[in-house]
């Protein structure tokens, strides 16, 4: 059991935990947290699978990709939070439950 494999597996577990929470939870902030944890899991797979041998130095290419990915997921988080706040201001809810009733017009 090499450390790289350990981290890869943990990444997948984090991804799954996040996926589960994203689907199950209603509260918008919790969904956002879940998506972030999913993302962390993916990034961990990226980096850990790029670790080769015992050199202990990760491949710079996936590192760069993960940096890009972190920024992208930060952007989504920021927009999602503002959307959630805005929605909360209009409906008083912190969930997506509103669109069923208001979908008529």
């Amino acid at each position: 059991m090499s450390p790289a494999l350990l981290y890869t597996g943990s990444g997948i577990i984090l991804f799954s935990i996040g996926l589960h929470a994203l689907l199950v939870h209603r509260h918008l902030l919790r969904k956002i947290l879940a998506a972030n944890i999913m993302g962390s899991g993916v990034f961990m797979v990226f980096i850990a699978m790029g670790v080769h041998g015992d050199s202990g130095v990760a491949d710079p290419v996936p590192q760069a990709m993960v940096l890009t990915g972190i920024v992208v997921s930060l952007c989504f988080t920021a927009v999602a939070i503002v959307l959630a706040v805005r929605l909360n201001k209009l409906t008083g809810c912190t969930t997506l439950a509103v669109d069923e009733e208001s979908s008529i017009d």
Partner: protein
Amino acid sequence: MTELIVQQQWFLWMTLLPLGAAVAAFLAPRQAHWIGLVTALLLPLCALAAIAAATLSETQTITAGNWPTPLGIALRSDGLALVMLAVTALVGFIISCYALGYFPVRGHHQSRARYFWPLWLFLWGGCNALFISGDLFNLYVTLELVTLASVALIALEGGKAALAAALRYLFISLLGSLAYLLGVGILYGTYATVDIILLGDMLAATRLNHAAMSLMIAGLVLKSALFPLHFWLPQAHTMAPAPVSAVLSALVVKCAYVILLRLWFEVFPALDTIAIGHLLGLLGSIAIIWGSLMALRQERLKLLIAYSTVAQIGYLFLVFPLAHTETMASAWIGGVLLMMAHACGKAAMFMVAGTIHHTAGSDRISRLAGAGGPIGVLVVVFTLAAGTIIGLPPSGGFFAKWLFINAALVSGQWWYLPIILSGTLLAAAYIARVLGWAFLDVKRSSYPVIPWMMKWPPLVLSIIALLFGLIAYEPVQLALSGAPVSSPVLVEFGP
């Protein structure tokens, strides 16, 4: 002159131009609409130049920075990319014209107008960057660019339903793209490259690769709203302002699908895709029937159109099971043709629905009763555009269905015939229902005058959509250049 055209990498300019214009529109909000219009005028010209350049030059792939491919990002001007660039330029141009009328520069909603332009230009640039990308990670970044812009555009309407739809779309997209990205990560970990061409050469049929493939396909299927993962689409597409609905249905859904096409035909041919192909075909078939039935039940025009998109996406996914060795080109071209035709037709339909909403005060289908005068013309435009959705000749949809049926017959998968046919009839039924209301002989109220820009652009686009089949030869030839398929387009039964 010729040299000037060949020497410039026009397809790259097509990504830089809208992105630059988006920044400009952000910096100068009062001039945003002019910046948008000029860009929308320039991009079709660039597309023509890019096509001309591509037909004259040999190379279809360059890399950013000219670094060798495992390291650099491949940017491709192959047939698929050029065709999508061109269609996006055409549809985008017309939608931009329409948006000029839809978002008045002065008056109550001017903040929406100001933010529409930079967001839309970002989306356009993102789409273009996506179409030319030959690198799985770069595709992820471009896809997210497109998604984020779409989310903001949906939310632009400002109502709570729109915000909820936008937020749901955001979560769904995140889910989809993270699944895709996980697959990319696994592929990179195994092969140390994310270049489509290199991966296509190296990939072996291991279980790990199959898992990566499943993840990527699942993520993209979610993003392209295939049944049963379509549940987010109707709300997202109907709650947005009309030009945005047009953009989403015509272009954004296609983005994920284009990636899927590239993956399926260029990255994964070595893998065992038959079962997944059949699964996608099955889901596509259900989507056709389910989407059409739901469209038939809708009370609101925009929802009807959105569900029709769900059904049309179903057709797109028939490509995968139908693409056997001998029918590969049929299915592939059919899919590409349907994408183009649907982009034109659906954009026109959403724009008409927006205009009707604007004019009649609601997009309830029953409000169309006795539609005459200005609305009558709109209904006609709607019908013309719907021709391509039903698959009436000479629209592109007709020839796409021809190719699908041809592929289904020759590959011996006759069970897709009744699906395609009932989809056609159901589509005719839901369009006829709209027409029926519009033709209903009742006394009608007078309607306000329709702005010029909200009437003519959809008309032009719907006529293009209806007659697309007559001019499809050139686009199809273009798409075939550098296509990952090499069988004849119209296949005959083998001996």
